[in-house]
């Protein structure tokens, strides 16, 4: 199930290097091979893979798969996490590719700590996405913030040098901010807070 999607995601990634994301073409190809029998959990994993190739295509697929608010939040969170993972991989590779520079950035404590922080954040995001099953709003709310931080750290360690990798991480930042479906973080805070406090979200007046 995962292999063909991963192969296609790699094609999307290559296409993005040649020019603007061909979202419509990507999406059409993706729909053709998407496993109709996939469970929600499998869709989540597959969307992370697609986000590793093209964020806007992954968001489009997430929207197409969405059945209700809960699956919508979970699928969007999966794409956000996939984008953070992509930024992490790009940053790691970029640092490794600079081994001939003196001092080798991989052997600097600041780089190592930044990489570890990204790695820890991705591990936490993965856990909350896959294990917090009570609702999907909490994972989406949490991941929306954490994914941004990971991408920001990735950008920070590769540097805004105008290099290909910084451009690609910049594109991921753009994807996460501009391609993701609208998300009202304040509304999420209100709903999560009211649920924790046992307040009916439909109660009027809304506050006090």
């Amino acid at each position, binding site marked *: 199930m995962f292999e063909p999607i991963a192969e296609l995601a790699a094609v999307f990634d290559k296409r993005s290097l040649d020019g603007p994301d061909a979202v419509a073409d990507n999406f059409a190809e993706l729909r053709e091979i998407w496993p109709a029998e996939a469970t929600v959990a499998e869709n989540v994993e597959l969307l992370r893979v697609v986000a590793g190739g093209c964020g806007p295509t992954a968001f489009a697929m997430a929207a197409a798969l969405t059945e209700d608010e809960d699956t919508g939040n979970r699928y969007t969170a999966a794409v956000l996490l996939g984008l953070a993972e992509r930024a992490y991989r790009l940053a790691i590779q970029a640092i490794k590719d600079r081994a001939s520079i*003196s001092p080798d950035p*991989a052997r600097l404590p600041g780089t190592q700590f930044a990489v*570890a922080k990204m790695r820890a954040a991705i*591990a*936490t995001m993965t*856990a*909350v996405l896959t294990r917090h099953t009570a609702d999907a709003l909490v994972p989406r709310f949490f991941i929306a913030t954490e994914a941004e931080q990971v991408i920001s750290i990735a950008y920070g360690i590769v540097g805004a040098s105008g290099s290909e990798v910084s451009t690609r991480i910049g594109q991921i930042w753009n994807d996460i901010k501009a391609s993701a479906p609208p998300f009202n973080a*304040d509304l999420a805070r209100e709903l999560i*807070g009211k649920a924790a406090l*046992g307040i009916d979200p439909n109660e009027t007046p809304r506050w006090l």
Partner: protein
Amino acid sequence: MSRRGIDYLALARDLAPMFAERAPRHDEESSFPYENLDELVRSGYTAMTVPEEFGGDGAPLEVLCEAQRILAGACASTAFAVNMHVHGLAMIARLGGDSAEWACKAVLDGAVISGGFSEPGVGGNWWHPTTKAEKVDGGYVLNGRKGFFTGYPGATHLFLSAATTDDRGLPQPMAFLIPKPERGIRVTAEWDAAGMRATGSHSLALEDLFIEDRWMVGEQGTLPLLFMSGVHWAWCSFASCFVGIARGALEHVVRTQKARVISVIGKPNAHLPGIQFRVAEMAAKVAAAEAHLDAAIHADHEVPDPLGHYIDMSLMKSGVTRLSAEAVTLGMQVQGGSGLSSSDPLQRMYRDVVAGLLVPPATDVVLEWAGKQALDVPIFAEPRWVG
């Protein structure tokens, strides 16, 4: 329900209210909660991790962590003190052999273990103990210092590290589990700290402490490998104590804000948007911390790469304790000035949860190792960094 008929989660829930009631006094006096420990021994809680082959229940990691979370929400000091025992025993038992057998038998008979791997001259580098073990006829003589020997006042047995020097002059770390001796150990400073005040985490001097050969745990020099292989018992249980504090803080804050009515508002504070927003952030952080801990508990622990396993578990502990501390800090902001009052348990939770950031593994070492591993930089290469 266990073979011995003990439901450890139900037991933790039964004991928690009593521990919560005693917690303020022990916190204020920095006194060790002997009566809580007695309850834990009497009820069979301390035998939770004795494997079935040695006559116990062999409670799995998830049960241990959930029970510890419940206790930590009531009295974090008690939970953390007994944590040294329950996880330490699980790690010893996992090794099998004579030391596992006698340790488990002793625990079934009421023994309580406290652990001492931290040392003033070591920082976060626990695998390089500076306590010296000198081989003598029939055993070893230990000299050195231990810090943060959590649970020491209530312990009947001590699990501690030291190092001999091999023929090449290299340190050989080793571990011992010994009945608490009458001679050779001196308390140099009683625990008096801002947080986790009732853990009895004393500082000790080991002065010509003779230990018989039979008290050695594992083979000489294998301590780091043994610890890394079984580290999930340590770091997951550590993390469970601190996420338990955070969950307890969230529940306390929710209860308070639902009940508190300020006259100029006329409705419970829970209806204020700012309260809802911060409670939401608390809830999200607690949920994320719990999820990460849960993932670590259920991860494959029988991996061929002990160092990678150690790093994954260490990253989890660092992340979970950070989120827990952030959640409780938000709770203080929700609670307002009353949260600082000594009558509010939140101020104790606030001081206790900070300890999670400071207990092993040292965060900076975790970040260094995790970063190096991800970047394919040899973890133990010297010099550690270039410049």
